[in-house]
């Protein structure tokens, strides 16, 4: 039905998150029908990204500059470091525009199921960054899952004795959340982390 180039395009699109073979076929057809408006600019953008975007050797963020725009921004204080599991988490915090310090991307979380141990994460570079001095606080912004929090506690243990304050994100009621729809664990965590008004 389709030539090998189209089949290859569909196979590659199907490997993207959220796309299966059927939706990949639709996406490929959509691109081919909009060659000038979408397919060629997308191909050029992908080629450009493959050539120029690199992982920052300091924090692990993706950027065209080395070091990345966040690490090289002189306006951002270097004293506060936010540790995240992946670049998606870094971008989420940047979107929230509430953290002005630096970042450190771990590249995952500890997982017994997937065989991810401390040696598979960017932990040594984190310890080295903290050990180099100039950092007052490390904010552990790992996921609020068993694996994410296990990773957070492991990092806290590794940083014990460095003199750096280690903090962790609060767990509780999300903005717009109604208590009736929250799970027991979240309500319990929110109650335990209550603060005086």
């Amino acid at each position, binding site marked *: 039905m389709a030539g090998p180039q189209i089949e290859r395009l569909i196979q590659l699109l199907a490997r993207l998150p959220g796309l299966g073979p059927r939706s990949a076929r639709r996406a490929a057809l959509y691109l081919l029908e909009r060659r000038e408006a979408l397919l060629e600019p997308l191909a050029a953008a992908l080629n450009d990204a493959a050539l120029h975007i690199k992982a920052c050797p300091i924090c692990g963020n993706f950027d065209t500059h080395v070091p990345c725009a966040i690490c090289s921004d002189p306006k951002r204080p270097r004293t506060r470091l936010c540790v995240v599991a992946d670049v998606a988490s870094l971008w989420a915090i940047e979107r929230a525009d509430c953290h002005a310090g630096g970042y450190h991307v771990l590249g995952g979380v500890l997982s*017994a199921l997937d065989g991810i141990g401390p040696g598979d994460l960017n932990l040594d570079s984190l310890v080295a960054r903290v050990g180099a001095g100039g950092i007052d606080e490390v904010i552990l912004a790992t996921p609020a899952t068993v694996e994410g929090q296990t990773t957070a506690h492991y990092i806290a243990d590794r940083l014990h004795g460095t003199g750096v304050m280690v903090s962790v994100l609060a767990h509780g009621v999300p903005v717009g959340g109604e208590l009736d729809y929250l799970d027991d664990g979240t309500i319990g965590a929110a109650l335990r982390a209550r603060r005086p008004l």
Partner: protein
Amino acid sequence: MDWQDDAIVLAVRPLGEGGAVVELLTRAHGRHAGLVRGARSKNNRGVAQPGNRVSAAWRARLADQLGQLSLELTTAHAARAMEDPGRLAALSAACALCHAVLPDRQPHGAAFEALDALLGALAGDSWPSVYVHFELALLRDLGFGLDLSACAATGDTRDLAYVSPKTGRAVSAAVGAAYRDKLLALPAFLTQGGEGDAAQIRDGLALTGFFLERHVRPHLPPARDRLAGRFGG
């Protein structure tokens, strides 16, 4: 094919955009996995966390299929343990151990009860001792129970201080003194009840870890090693 059962979440493996293959330890159906649609949705992501006690319903066309699970949270053990590194380490180690050593779809009611008791004990301060008892119960349920009731040499039930690595039977302090380098330490709280201190917990974990590695699984999960490391093991 379908069943409903009490269960504890052991592991969660994301599948697709919002689903997950969730592995449970059930009371009557053993270690059992199933697909949970929407497991990572905003409303359900807190349910499918290792350690959580759930009410599970499994359904499949054929018995050997993966099948679909629907979960209803009964007790949010994971969220309660997250704030304390020791408790979280115990929860992770227990779930990883059950995931690693229990056979698939074979009833292990005693292992379920022991894990349930451990997760319940995480709310209190005696959880380290309960954890060691959990591993002893796991060994017993798998057919490798230790005999800590009397000295293997004299039959004496008092002053038990060692365990023979060959037989898994207790040895009294007097008899074992000459062979102490070859014997495993038996912490007092395992024979006399009560709670053990950090050194006794370390000895208890070394004892159960030795027999788990010898009889059940050559290399214990990293989560178990991290828990033992918290007690200097």
